[in-house]
């Protein structure tokens, strides 16, 4: 069973560093997604792993065996591409059955594997069809079945759903995850779609500019991202800049000297633009008085009230967007920050554009980060 290790992998194309000292360990049977914006190096990484490209530096190990220099066809992996390259003159069955024939497997075994794989993707009923008779989603299913038929325990999925309609994509991503788990495969899936990554993976490797930003479970990346780029990329987020000005204990003097945690207070106060204040809970020991911070809140973690509330900032509704089971409001705060707030549709109160409201920041739902030196915009940029 395949276990994978990338050790200090770098890849340069002329001046461009496509992958920069990547270290990654993938356990056998794990479903890992490599996620990131265009040009972040995610495809480079799987091309190196599969032997399509050789790294400039570093080594790949599959099952403890160094595979540097070993050609793709000897690495025993199944590869599913974004653009489904089925053989146009072959039927669904012949396409799926290609590897067993080429690898000269015993006839019975080949037939059995092909039948099972096509059944898994629910395409056995179309086995006599040619690719041009199939929809995009169906073609991709055959591509998946063909990769499964290779008998390999390691599956590489390079943007497998990107070329498909939104709706078809939703249905196929569940299928792929189920297949991988049922077959006990190790899967590495490349995508730019954060929702696809969350719904399929055991762990997500988030990349940016050739480097790994963060590796964790979907839940942790969404709920407790360790850095600002992650917070913005995995789901949407509001960011407010400020600085720590007060300690919850009131003993300000003590705090001036060291990390906040040392004074024993579990909350502190940040001053944000125009002298507004927000109470923060457990901001962690890395902050000192006067430190610049960025406060992050997901739209669903803020709420709106017409009445004044604790830890709320006044604002004016500038846009409202119907999202199905919830409403999304854009609110221009008195601090001049614009925030997005999501309110379940079941809540009786509907707010109107231009209405004055209070946006409530529940201290427990706020995450706090050091203010980045290169500026917030640069750190969040998707391009």
């Amino acid at each position, binding site marked *: 069973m395949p276990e994978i290790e990338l050790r200090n992998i770098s890849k340069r194309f002329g001046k461009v560093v496509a992958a920069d000292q990547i270290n990654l360990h993938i356990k056998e049977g794990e479903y890992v997604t490599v996620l990131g*914006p265009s040009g972040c190096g995610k495809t480079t990484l799987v091309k190196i792993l599969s032997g399509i490209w050789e790294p400039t530096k570093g080594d790949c190990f599959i099952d403890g065996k160094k595979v540097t220099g070993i050609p793709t066809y000897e690495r025993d992996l199944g590869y599913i591409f974004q653009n489904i390259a089925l053989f146009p003159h072959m039927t669904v069955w012949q396409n799926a059955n290609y590897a067993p024939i080429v690898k000269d497997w015993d006839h019975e075994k080949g037939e059995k594997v092909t039948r099972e794989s096509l059944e898994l993707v629910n395409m056995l009923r179309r086995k006599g069809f040619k690719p041009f008779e199939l929809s995009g989603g169906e073609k991709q299913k055959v591509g998946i079945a063909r990769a499964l038929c290779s008998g390999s325990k390691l599956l590489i999925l390079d943007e497998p759903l990107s070329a498909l*309609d939104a*709706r078809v994509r939703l249905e196929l991503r569940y299928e792929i995850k189920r297949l991988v788990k049922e077959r006990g495969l190790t899967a590495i899936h490349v995508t730019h779609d954060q929702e696809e990554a969350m*719904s399929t993976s055991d762990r997500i490797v988030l990349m940016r500019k050739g480097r790994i930003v963060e590796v964790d479970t979907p839940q942790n990346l969404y709920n407790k991202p360790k850095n600002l780029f992650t917070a913005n990329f995995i789901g949407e987020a509001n960011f407010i800049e400020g600085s720590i000005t007060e300690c919850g204990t009131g003993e300000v003097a003590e705090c001036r000297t060291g990390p906040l945690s040392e004074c024993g207070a579990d909350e502190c106060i940040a001053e944000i633009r125009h002298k507004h204040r927000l109470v923060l809970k457990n901001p962690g020991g890395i902050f000192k008085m006067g430190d610049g911070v960025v406060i992050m809140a997901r739209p669903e973690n803020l709420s709106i009230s017409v009445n004044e509330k604790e830890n709320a900032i006044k604002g004016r509704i500038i846009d409202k967007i119907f999202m*199905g089971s919830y409403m999304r409001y854009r609110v221009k705060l008195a601090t001049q920050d614009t925030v997005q707030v999501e309110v*379940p549709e079941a809540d009786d109160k509907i707010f109107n554009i231009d209405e004055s409201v209070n946006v409530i920041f529940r201290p427990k739902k706020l995450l706090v980060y050091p203010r980045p030196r290169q500026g917030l915009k640069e750190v969040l940029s998707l391009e």
Partner: protein
Amino acid sequence: MPEIIIRNLKKVFGDLVAIDSLDLTVKDGEYLTILGPTGAGKTTLLRLIAGLEKQTSGSIHIDGKCVDELPPEDRMVTFLSQTYSLFPHMNAWQNTIFGPIARGWDSEKVDIIGREMLEMVHLYDRKDALPHELSGGMQQRNALARALCADARILLLDEPLRALDARLRLDLRHELKKLVKDMGMTAIHVTHDQEEALTISDRIIMLRDGKIIQSGTPQEMFNKPASPFIHHFIGEANFMEGTLTGKTGTGSRLTGESGRTYDIAATNLEVGAKAVAGIKTEFTIMEKEAKDGVNDFPGTVERKLFLGRFTDFEIALDNGHVVHARLPSSIAHKFDEGDKINVHFDPERLLVFPVPEKGLKAELEMM
């Protein structure tokens, strides 16, 4: 001001009826989305309005004038395709002012409008960059600036965000709508992405097999879908099939083949008629405690999928039916795979439809 009136429009390619006797009025300043699965005729409709295809029959009026015989450049429209073809040897500035220059505007006016448009799409500081030096999102914004510079009042957008990264798409949706509204333009936007349609449109028309099967605000399309297909395409729904067996206080009662009964929303269908009832997965309620009331069904959580903001569940009901539910992730931690739970359907949310002509399964087919 530009209003688009389409009457009895038909387009046939060989045996295929791509657009079938279609009537549509787009109001001045409206942001209209054409939503539908692949092959519904969305792009064909847009190309007919643009004049890039000639209709088989029917008429199109723009601003009170029949444009059937007019070439694309005389229709006051700008067409932006999903593969934004910028001139590769021109920089962002040159690409943007291509239209005004070609029209022979004086250079002062060209400078003003070019700058205004590039600033609006946040690209003015990259005006000297060639397309290959820009990211996909920047190229798309450059193409948009060029389209806006054409000074047309009607913007035809064919899947304008499709080629972009998923995360970038979310940001650009908002910017795109704001630009169109700020400039007082009329926009027709083709997409297959229902969430994009919900968030960006004043009005959505749902196209299938070349016909408009429903038209309405995002709220109307979501809350009052005209057919099971729309109920399942805009959002996602669970369906029950059966026969109407009676009335309740405010609604009706549906009895399935196996004898299970559901209280459902009010309907004009007669008692005794075959019907389909459907409820959005967002409104399908999961409860920890077993219950034995109306529309309560015991079941087991088979699958749990974390999506970030939401978590999706697949639940096998003890009666053999499989249903899906979507909960905000903040409360999803209460339920795990293998848990025995109660599923409840609010009768008001169980919308009723006549049985589709080709049966429910064919009706819901997406591909």
